[in-house]
């Protein structure tokens, strides 16, 4: 009997079991891997390939050259990121207190509040967008009411511009922030706050040093979902922006119509994907996800 066999009597058997387990797990993830390949890797690769196809069907850089030449493209990307970042910030400013409030309620009342969040979430995006148009336009409900009440003398411009776009987008995006954040806050052990108080922390201090850091993973998940979804928005800025807010998705669609080629549109998609990737990479360096998880 060797020393190894004495110290680890079932070494081989354990290794065999571990190997089997790995194989089982791999088998279980196989459908998912295939799905990701078929639905994400292949289409994105195809998009990438198409962006290098010119109007005459040959390989060329013309789709990227065009974007370098016209200042409109850079402005459209700037608008896209500006609107997405603003929407995300406003969503966080409104969503965080709301999710916090809901997490402090009893289950029953929290569920009632949750219905309030979910019903708009389940309503068609198009319906909500047009509803905002009716409410916000020059002779819309809001302006008419404010004039009748004597609050303003002239109708104010709150739609067909950035303001209107932001109102509509925040309304649509808010549930995407609240849902992960609320789930996260619910899971925070309330005893940790009690412990902080018993050690002499004021409620404000307990919130900022204990509760807030613990809620960060949920907040970041929500911010990420909202930001990424905003980048691809089409209908809401098209209707509420009144042509003055042009986002990348709208230019992608108009490029198909203008150039009759997928390539002209794909190049925009590729640039958007790459820039988003870079932004998320930098963001992940600034705020390390692992660190948050370990707190």
């Amino acid at each position, binding site marked *: 009997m060797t020393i190894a066999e004495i110290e680890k009597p079932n070494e081989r058997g354990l290794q065999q079991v571990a190997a089997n387990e790995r194989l089982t797990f791999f088998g279980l993830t196989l459908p998912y891997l295939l799905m990701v*390949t*078929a639905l994400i890797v*292949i289409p994105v690769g195809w998009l990438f390939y198409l962006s290098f196809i010119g109007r005459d069907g040959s390989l060329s850089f013309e789709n990227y050259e*065009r974007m370098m030449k*016209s*200042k*409109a493209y850079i*402005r*459209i990307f700037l*608008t896209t990121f500006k609107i997405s970042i603003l929407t995300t910030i406003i969503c966080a400013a409104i969503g965080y207190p709301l999710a916090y409030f809901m997490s402090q309620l009893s289950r029953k009342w929290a569920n009632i509040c949750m219905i309030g969040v979910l019903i708009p979430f389940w309503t068609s995006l198009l319906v909500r967008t047009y509803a905002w148009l009716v409410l916000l*336009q*020059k*002779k*819309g409900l809001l302006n008419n009411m404010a004039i009748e009440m004597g609050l303003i003398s002239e109708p104010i*411009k709150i739609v*067909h511009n950035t303001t209107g776009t932001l109102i509509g987008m925040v309304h649509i995006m808010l549930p995407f922030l609240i849902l992960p954040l609320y789930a996260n806050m619910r899971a925070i052990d309330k005893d940790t706050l009690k412990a902080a108080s018993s050690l002499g922390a004021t409620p404000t201090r307990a919130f900022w040093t204990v509760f807030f850091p613990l809620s960060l993973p949920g907040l970041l998940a929500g911010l990420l979902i909202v930001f990424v979804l905003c980048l691809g928005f089409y209908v809401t800025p*098209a209707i509420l922006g*009144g*042509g*003055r807010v*042009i986002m990348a998705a709208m*230019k992608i669609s*108009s490029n*198909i*119509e*203008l*150039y*009759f080629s997928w390539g002209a549109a794909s190049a925009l998609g590729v640039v958007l994907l790459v820039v988003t990737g870079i932004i998320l990479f930098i963001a992940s360096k600034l705020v390390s996800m692992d660190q948050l998880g370990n707190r």
Partner: protein
Amino acid sequence: MKINILKSAIGCLTATGFLFSATASYAEDTLRIVSWGGAYQKGQSLGIFQPAAKAMGITVKEDTYGGISDVKLMVKSGADKFDIFSSGAGSCASGAAEGVLEKLDYSIIDVSNHLPGMYSDYCAGADIFSVVAAYNTDTYGEGKGPKTWADFYDVEKFPGTRAMRSKVDAQLETALLADGVPMDQVYKVLDSEEGIERALNKIRTIKPHIAVWWSSGAQHAQLMKDGEVDMTTGWNGRFDVAKEDGAKVAYDWQSGIMDWEGYGIPKGAKNKDLAMKYIAEMMKPEYMAEFAKYITYGPTNKKVYELGLMTDERAKMMPSHPDNAKHQLTLSTEWYSKWRTIAAEMYTEMMTE
């Protein structure tokens, strides 16, 4: 291994595509036609599409579509969704230049009574419409609003918010006409990037007053109906329909830019021969007269007037009526097939400034 996965994935996708196209069956006596929806297609459907189908004893299925790019994408991807489409002359010309349309057979389709220039090799003209400057009669008073494009661009004489199209089509012309370019010189001036820039600079002068850039006929009709803007560029028929609906809107023919719409056939349409016969049927004056009862878009076929198929009162509302047409610029499809892409990019650049 990787290549095999790719191959089988592509194989699967092709197979599904094949199944779908196989199930999209069509009968010998069925045609599928697409148009723009709204008040326009309602008129086409009631006045032309269905009566003509009935006369020929065939079935015509209608749908809406997103314009000539849909035709192009359909032909290029080998899909088969419709046999005939309704399209503006300029878009049709650009589709023809891309080689995605069937040449029309004018030995079957009779255009001998068409107004000059109101048909092309790939597009049989069906109605004539105008882009006009419409204004709110509550703001300016009936007949006291902007009459010409010079008025539309004059923000001191006519203060108020404006709307223009988010696409370049028929917008640059308005700027040059406002800038004092004579009608017959407009397309000569536009025939260079400097000329286009001149038009864009004119639009820049009123840009702070442009509250909305509209993207559809339904939208600009709604903008006027809701009083969201005081004046807008747009299609005359949509405004007339809105007016009948109670909108406070009027326009003057002095601001008209005339254009025409027609029917084309996508390359490789399965029912091409029947589609050709059906277009021939739709060219008959009685259908055009019936269509014009629903929306004020004039007939391309002179016979409508000659046979007295339209009342004088209605005829005077048509963009193509001689009294109205004499004030108007006719849109040049040649200019659009040459410059549209460049002009569109420059226009977007101006919009995003």
